[in-house]
């Protein structure tokens, strides 16, 4: 899996294109970049990025990292996520990286951090469970 493979896979998804993240792949370690766009703002007075946009970006980062690790044909499905918001997302570029804490035959647990200025000052963190392979594929492979 190369950076181009992942970029092409993301570009096939209209919603991912709407959010507009770029991916940077170093080996199998992924950093996603969400370039600032006005349409990502939740509150233009603060101004703050929309919490839903930040969450969606982190979900996308988790599924993209799993896509790279597993080499699946499809992005995994989300079973459930929990997001903590630590700081206001300012109108500038946002970064995210995901750590797969457990990769099972069917389900993976992933933790994601999103940050802007400093990696050790995340604006939000996510942990979630994702369905890596449906039952039939897991049984076969």
């Amino acid at each position, binding site marked *: 899996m190369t950076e181009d493979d992942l970029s092409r896979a993301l570009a096939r998804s209209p919603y991912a294109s709407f959010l507009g993240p770029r991916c940077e792949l170093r080996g199998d370690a992924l950093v996603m970049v969400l370039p600032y766009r006005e349409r990502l703002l939740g509150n233009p007075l603060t101004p703050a990025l929309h919490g839903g946009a930040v969450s969606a970006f982190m979900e996308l980062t988790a599924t993209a990292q799993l896509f790279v690790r597993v080499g699946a044909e499809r992005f995994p499905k989300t*079973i459930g996520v929990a997001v903590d918001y630590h700081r206001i997302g300012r109108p500038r570029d946002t970064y995210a990286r995901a750590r797969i804490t457990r990769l099972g035959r069917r389900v993976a647990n992933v933790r994601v951090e999103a940050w802007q200025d400093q990696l050790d000052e995340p604006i939000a963190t996510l942990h979630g469970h994702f369905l890596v392979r449906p039952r039939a594929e897991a049984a076969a492979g």
Partner: protein
Amino acid sequence: MGDLQATLDSVRDLVIDGSPHAVALGMRAVSLTPELAVAELPYSEKLIGDPKTRVIHGGAATALLDHVSGMAAFAALGGEAAPATLDLRIDYFRAAEPGKTLVAEARPRMATRVVAWIDALVHDGDRDDPVAVARAAFMVPEANVEQARAARAAREGGG
């Protein structure tokens, strides 16, 4: 301080129109009361996650749940200042049916003066068969209280 419902009625459309991300996704406010907030997200091409299945991406449902929960928190916290999400937990039960409008409902479970806890769900036609459910906590940042005061003063001064 006037009647809360009158305040909520006056800002009902602003809670979407004032939020560029909500507008860009195509959200619409349906109702906003102290007990219930409802918003919908009509199906559109840009929301599709996987072009093969044409199912809406989970991220769009996430944004809708976050937004409608924020609307409910805004009402539960007195309808004055925009609340910020502290945490959001979502369980995705199933894929939404392609072509159908997503409808999200949020209800305050509990609210103090600064924090509101919200239960929310999103469905695509039958609220007893939700696509996803969520729980969220919100608080009003000090900066937003001052911002709301300034905006109100400007409105009253100008009109």
